[in-house]
């Protein structure tokens, strides 16, 4: 790619709100049911039906708005967006045009080099999802599944503030993190709970005006998002450098071929003929309601990360990792609340726990070692009951389901650390007596042989000896 082009990216992210029922009908919004088993008279747009807003959408949308420091619209109104498509039963989508619930706001993303960048959010509005058209299995016909029709969505529109595919992915991940933290969405991308439309354009470096953009629709994984944008950047660069012009159009990303291709041209695009939805009256969102939502919000990921660093003394990297997901952060904090040692807790959670979860592909919520068990192990290291090495054995035993009580396991397996000079002294004395040559070497200044003595003691005690105590005891005996 030539160095003279600047990449400009804006994202529209559709987040499915995690409500029990749909946005305007009482039908279940659960994913994965048999086609059309979750479609009521309303979802089918039968003659005479009327929408009624599911009030559960408001706290979620408002929490997101507060989470990005946006203004919350005082009036929430819906509009009709008119177009014909078989999976849009009414022939119009109920959405928010003029008065979106969330206006403005911004999120901070972390770039690869660790620096921060602010991405502005233009708006976020509530709308209903369409159904699904199924083109396979119907021999030249199209099947329509209306289970998804009417699922509540929050469409989050960014400013064109991103300058690379990596920034776009970082922004999308930050939004994903925020909506899952705030329980706005389950964020399950494999089920379409978060889908990205990427607007990509190029302009000469230093130019003010934006170039013509393309919109790549419905990208449902971070990996595909990165690949789709990168493909577009290369494609547009080639077009521009060969003297061509970019057509403003909607494109689709095909992960199998790793390419984007045109879906429909915006020039012939429909006039959506928006107008206020007369079946729904404006909803007034007062300050008291907003305050109630604010009070029920958890600490945001950025705040958590800062607190882990400044108050708990974690490294920047540990703070970032441990605040990355609400479940993980909660696990870590539960653990710290019991063991009161954030550094050791961070090392264990980041190391053995995350390692195990990744290895066995387990969610933190299903971790075989609970935060309580993790803390119990740490407490036993702290009070000298077990050594760090033994602690790993205990951790593995709990992981493998051999026990659900850390203390019972330590006792029953006889893993209590051998400490106190009255137990260790006779062992140390015997080993020094049995190895006079090595003792002589130590006394003549070859302190390296200390390791040999420690190893012998550990072997004798099956690793249960307190390593620091063993060290101190051997040195004092040899120097006698």
């Amino acid at each position: 790619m030539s160095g003279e082009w600047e990449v400009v990216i804006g994202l529209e992210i559709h987040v499915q709100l995690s409500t029990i029922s749909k946005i305007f009908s009482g039908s279940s919004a659960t994913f994965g049911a048999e086609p059309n088993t979750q479609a009521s008279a309303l979802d089918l747009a039968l003659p005479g039906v009327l929408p009624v807003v599911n009030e559960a959408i408001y706290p979620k949308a408002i929490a997101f708005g507060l989470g990005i420091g946006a203004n919350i619209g005082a009036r929430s109104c819906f509009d009709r967006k008119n177009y014909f498509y078989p999976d849009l039963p009414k022939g119009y989508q109920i959405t928010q045009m003029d008065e979106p619930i969330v206006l403005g706001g911004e999120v901070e993303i972390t770039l690869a080099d660790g620096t921060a960048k602010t991405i502005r959010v233009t708006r976020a509005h509530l709308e209903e999802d369409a159904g699904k058209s199924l083109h396979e299995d119907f021999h030249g016909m199209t099947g329509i599944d209306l289970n998804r029709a009417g699922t509540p969505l929050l469409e989050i529109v960014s400013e064109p503030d991103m300058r690379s595919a990596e920034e776009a992915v970082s922004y999308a991940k930050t939004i994903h993190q925020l909506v899952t933290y705030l329980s706005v969405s389950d964020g399950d991308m494999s089920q379409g709970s978060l889908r990205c439309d990427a607007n990509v354009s190029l302009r000469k470096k230093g130019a003010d005006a934006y170039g013509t953009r393309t919109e790549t629709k419905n990208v449902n994984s971070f990996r595909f998002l990165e690949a789709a944008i990168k493909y577009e950047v290369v494609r547009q660069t080639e077009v521009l450098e060969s003297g061509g012009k970019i057509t403003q159009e909607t494109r689709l990303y095909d992960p199998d071929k790793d390419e984007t291709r045109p879906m429909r041209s915006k020039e012939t695009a429909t006039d959506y003929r928006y107008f206020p939805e007369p079946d729904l009256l404006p909803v007034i969102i007062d300050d008291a309601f907003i305050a109630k939502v604010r009070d029920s919000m958890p600490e945001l990921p950025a705040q958590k990360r800062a607190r882990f660093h400044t108050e708990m003394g974690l490294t920047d990297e540990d703070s970032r990792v441990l605040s990355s997901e609400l479940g993980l952060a909660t696990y870590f904090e539960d653990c710290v609340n019991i063991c009161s040692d954030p550094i050791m807790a961070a090392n264990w959670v980041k190391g053995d726990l995350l390692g195990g979860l990744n290895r066995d592909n387990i969610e933190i919520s299903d971790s075989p070692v609970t935060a309580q068990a993790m803390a119990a192990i740490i407490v036993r290291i702290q009070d000298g009951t077990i050594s760090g090495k033994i602690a790993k054995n205990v951790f593995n035993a709990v992981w493998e389901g051999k026990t659900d009580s850390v203390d019972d396991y330590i006792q029953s397996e006889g893993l209590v650390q051998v400490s106190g000079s009255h137990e260790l002294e006779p062992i140390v004395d015997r080993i020094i007596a049995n190895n006079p040559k090595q003792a002589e070497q130590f006394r003549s200044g070859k302190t390296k042989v200390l390791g040999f003595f420690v190893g012998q003691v550990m072997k004798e005690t099956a690793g249960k000896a307190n390593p620091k105590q063993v060290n101190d005891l051997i040195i004092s005996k040899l120097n006698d």
Partner: protein
Amino acid sequence: MINRSLSQQLDDLSKGEYSSVELTQTYLDRIENHQSLNAYVSISKDVLEKARQADQLRAAGERKPLLGIPLAHKDIFCEAGVRTTAGSKMLDNFISPYDSTVVSLLRNAGALSLGKTNMDEFAMGSSNESSYFGAVKNPWQVDRVPGGSSGGSAAAVAARLCAAATGTDTGGSIRQPAAFCGITGIKPTYGRVSRWGMIAYASSLDQAGPLATTAEDCALLLSAMAGADEKDSTSSAVQVEDYSKFLSQDLKGKKIGLCVEYMEGLDPEMSRVIEEAIEVLSKLGAEFMDISLPTSPLAIPAYYIIAPAECSANLSRYDGVRFGYRCENPENLEDLYKRSRSESFGQEVKNRIMVGAFALSAGYYDAYYKKAQQIRRLIKNDFLEAFKSVDAILGPTTPGPAFKIGANADEPQAMYLQDIYTISANLAGLPAISLPAGFIEDLPAGIQLIGNYFDEATLLNLGHQFQAQTDWHKKAPELST
């Protein structure tokens, strides 16, 4: 028994003068004998059985407010298991799987459904000529229209083919046919009656109401139909009154406004009808004063932007995909849409969809739709101002009596002017009643009273007192068989 009002029939049923089965059978026979009026689209198969059950319940001491009364429903109200067409070829094959709130409330009140009445296609029309099932004839003179869009309901009530009927009113569709057929009809305040299950024409204007021979009957029916409905977000939580309680109130001190804009240039015969009505109401103690609704001349143009705009979206669901008419052998999706819609919508429906889509399109929205909404606000403000000094506003329901079938067929705009006095109440969302008040050329003429928000009680009170002094509402057309 057919010339007894609904309220009188309830008395008769409770006294055992006749049974609900006898009453129902009488209506069924009349419907059969007067099919040429084309008032009904379909007849309920099980209505006699329901009448039998009603008689049993009555014998067992059950006292529901409308027990055993055979009603007709405009074919715009969905009824579970019943074909519901909205007067369109598009829905010729549509059997609703669910009940509209209006139908279920009336059923719960004990009423029976004789059948579904003919109507202008999707309630778009003022003559009932746009129905896929053919024009309805005015029972007073069968070469005349009954008015529309609730023309089948009005004709059925006037011809005594039912005790009373339901209708809907978007720009005058209850009041204008009531006036043309010599009966009483009330359009309640917007939001007073649930729209759930009522096939939408223009959502912000549509409102259901009763058509009957008397104001007293309308009060009884409206009490059963009205109320908040969790299935309709635009339905109102304002407490529903027992409208029958206010009927006998004295009219002394009631202030009635005469809108100068409505009285100017009125047809002399219609003027005479209004003057006579003023005299009757004055004698009852009502006081009259002139008021002005300066924005009222803009009501028709504003309506013919807003209603088509809303209908253009409301009718998009009729696409041949899930229910309703589907064209033969569609070549592709676009062909399916185009032919399913163009082969099954009538001309007036197409006209309004086109006008509405245009008014909403990019570049025209501000000039048309937005402007029309601004006018709508001004009209509402005019009324709010007027209701500071009056309890109701009196005027004609229509410019003149029923016109001949076909007279306005080629002139949609002349047809649109039929609604000149009725449309403002829809734009403002106000309740309005039409009462039979005389005859012009042997055809019924109606007067309209517009009331303040949720003050249906005053309109019904005025109507009932007026009917206590007049007998226009008792006149029935002589039908040839």
